[in-house]
């Protein structure tokens, strides 16, 4: 097992199963009145978020706290990075406080790999540029397992800006590791070059090709990449050609989206609010999976009854 979670591939198929099974154990904790266990008591988790984030940073913070770890969150606007400190020096400085885990979100691809090279702490990649977002992949996979009986053989279509999506990159790989059949659909200008070779998935510019998918994974259109010099003529035309709404879906097709959503662009308003759409279930699973990831990196053994805080242990 890798000491870090930089790429979803660090886990391997067995690691994926292990973290997902662990997530099930922590899901049970959420049914209790006091949703907190002592598993990581005395451990220190630093969340270093140098790029905007709501759900990832919040869920990591809550995940750490529910495991009784001491959690410190550092954000871009309050960090010395604003004073021109290099990422390497920031990591080295944090390292002197001997944290057990550093969770890092950064705008540049390769930031988590750098952190893993220089830090003694376990590094969790919470999104580095357009490279990877492995905990998103885990929560997606966990959600898929809740909805579908089997991941193996499941047909999944990722729709939209595949080229710039770290979510697509990690989640496609994770689904494939458990045997899902994955494809990508999007405008020709937003499909990755040599995508078939790169991602082991069929690439299509034809939205009609989602028809056989059991699951349609809608990717966020990144406003900041559009406009002059962007990749599509307009968001209006994008919505017209690739936006997912009820009329584009076949009966029984389920829909996921990592959020934040652009209502009316890549996904229709009505579809976001449809209870069958899995956006909020994904978000809810985020903290569970992140509990499992933190636990997996810091305690590579079965949790004891005491660590899980079972009622019996609590009672004594």
């Amino acid at each position: 097992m890798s000491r870090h979670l930089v790429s979803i591939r660090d886990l391997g198929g067995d690691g994926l199963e292990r973290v997902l099974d662990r997530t099930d154990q922590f899901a049970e904790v959420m049914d209790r009145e006091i949703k907190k266990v002592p598993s990581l008591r005395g451990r220190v988790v630093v969340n270093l978020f140098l790029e905007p984030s709501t759900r990832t940073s919040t869920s990591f913070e809550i995940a750490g706290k529910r495991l009784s770890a001491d959690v410190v969150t550092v954000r871009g606007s309050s960090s010395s990075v604003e004073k021109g400190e290099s990422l390497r020096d920031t990591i080295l400085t944090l390292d002197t406080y001997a944290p057990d885990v550093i969770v890092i979100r950064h705008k540049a691809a390769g930031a988590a790999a750098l952190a893993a090279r220089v830090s003694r702490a376990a590094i969790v990649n919470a999104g580095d540029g357009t490279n990877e977002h492995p905990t998103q992949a885990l929560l997606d996979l966990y959600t898929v397992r809740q909805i579908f009986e089997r991941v193996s053989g499941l047909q999944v279509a990722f729709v939209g800006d595949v080229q710039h999506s770290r979510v697509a990159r990690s989640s496609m790989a994770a689904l494939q590791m458990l045997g899902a059949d994955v494809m990508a659909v999007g405008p020709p200008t937003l499909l990755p070059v040599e995508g078939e070779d790169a991602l082991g998935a069929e690439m299509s510019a034809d939205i009609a090709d989602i028809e056989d998918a059991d699951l349609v994974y809608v990717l966020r259109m990144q406003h900041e990449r559009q406009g002059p010099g962007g990749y599509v003529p307009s968001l209006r035309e994008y919505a017209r050609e690739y936006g997912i709404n009820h009329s584009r879906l076949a009966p029984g097709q389920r829909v996921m989206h990592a959020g934040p959503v652009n209502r009316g662009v890549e996904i229709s308003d009505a579809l976001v609010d449809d209870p069958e759409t899995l956006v909020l279930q994904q978000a809810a699973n985020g903290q569970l999976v992140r509990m499992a990831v933190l636990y997996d990196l810091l305690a590579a053994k079965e949790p004891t009854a005491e660590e899980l805080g079972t009622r019996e242990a609590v009672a004594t």
Partner: protein
Amino acid sequence: MTTQAIARGRLVQRAGPAVSLVITGARVLDPASGIDEVRDLVVRDGVIGGDPDGLDQVGGRGLVVLPGLVDPHVHLRTPGREDTEDIASGTRAAAAGGFTSIVAMPNTAPPVDSAAVLGSLLEIAASDAVVPVGFTAAITVGQEGRQLTEQAELAEVGAVAFTDDGFPVADARVMRLALQYQRLAQRPIALHEEDAALSHGGVVHEGANASRLGLPGIPGVSEAVAVGRDAILAEREGARIHIQHVSSAATVAEIARAKARGVAITAEVTPHHLVLTDDVLDELDPTRHKMNPPLRGAPDREALRAALVDGTIDCIATDHAPHASEEKDAPFEEAPFGVIGLETAFAACHTALVRSGAMELELLVRRMSADAASVLELPAPSLADGNTANLALWDLEEEWEVGSAGFASKSSNCAFTGAALVGRPQLTIAGGQLAWRKSP
């Protein structure tokens, strides 16, 4: 006898004692001069040949004497970033790699775009350069691509060639003016070919690895379209151009087409593009693997090797580009481009090309010595009697691990760090002076 600080052609070296020694029983190999025999080689007062009597002997049995290597493309970071390399350390690194002539690029701070800056560099070289070094000057003022530098004066002061390496000339009219003005300046124009709009912030080769890792790509055609344009302009103006660090198969095809129709065009390729592909990117380690042009795919590498063998690409150049480790140790996407190469160039090519059977040793020596000299119209080192000694004594069987004993360069951002290479100079004589000797 002591030589003066000397300008040999446009190359300058510090003054120092002329070496006298005899290398005994080595294979003396200089394909450009038609020499390949096992014998003693005499250097007396810095000149090859003469009477061996009374000279120090260097055992050469089982070793090979090669003509000094020539590098038409290095960055010596002087002036401005002497913390990462200076003329003394850069020329020492050259000597440690068997090079006896190198040519520095002008993208310094300030850039070499005036006779004053060029003159000061020549002065520093005359006191610090361990091997003869030449300097290029910028094509445009500030390398900004707008206004030509004073190229007649720069050529007179000693510019080897003109180049905006690192900042390709985007404006076709400015490029055309530079090519026309060459009729006055009379020096080669060396071109870093890249269409910045097509490169669009890319950091690695655009291809399956970039797509898998989510790194923005630099397409091979970004280089090829620029070469296409400039070959057409050079043809129109009857100008002489040299294409720097060719990296893509599409570019090789453009150069072949231009040569076939008689354009005065030459080209170089780096050892890292000949040896590595973008399959190494998985580690996301910019210190070793981020450079521009980027490491490309296997089909590109095969095209480069074939072009080097058939002469479409004329020579090898290192694009030795030192960077401070704290700048390189950054997120891949944000780290600066460039790797050092002087100390590993020959060994890497010898290991990956010659020992694998992809290329004859004789051809590699030509491509790194006589042919590398000719692209920028420099004197070619020769092992024939009567020539100034520019040579290295190589153990072509010695295996060594790159970086394990540090580098002579001030920087250590080498693409081959950790690799086991075969072939290492035992001593290097440059400009008739002992420039480097391997510590026992």
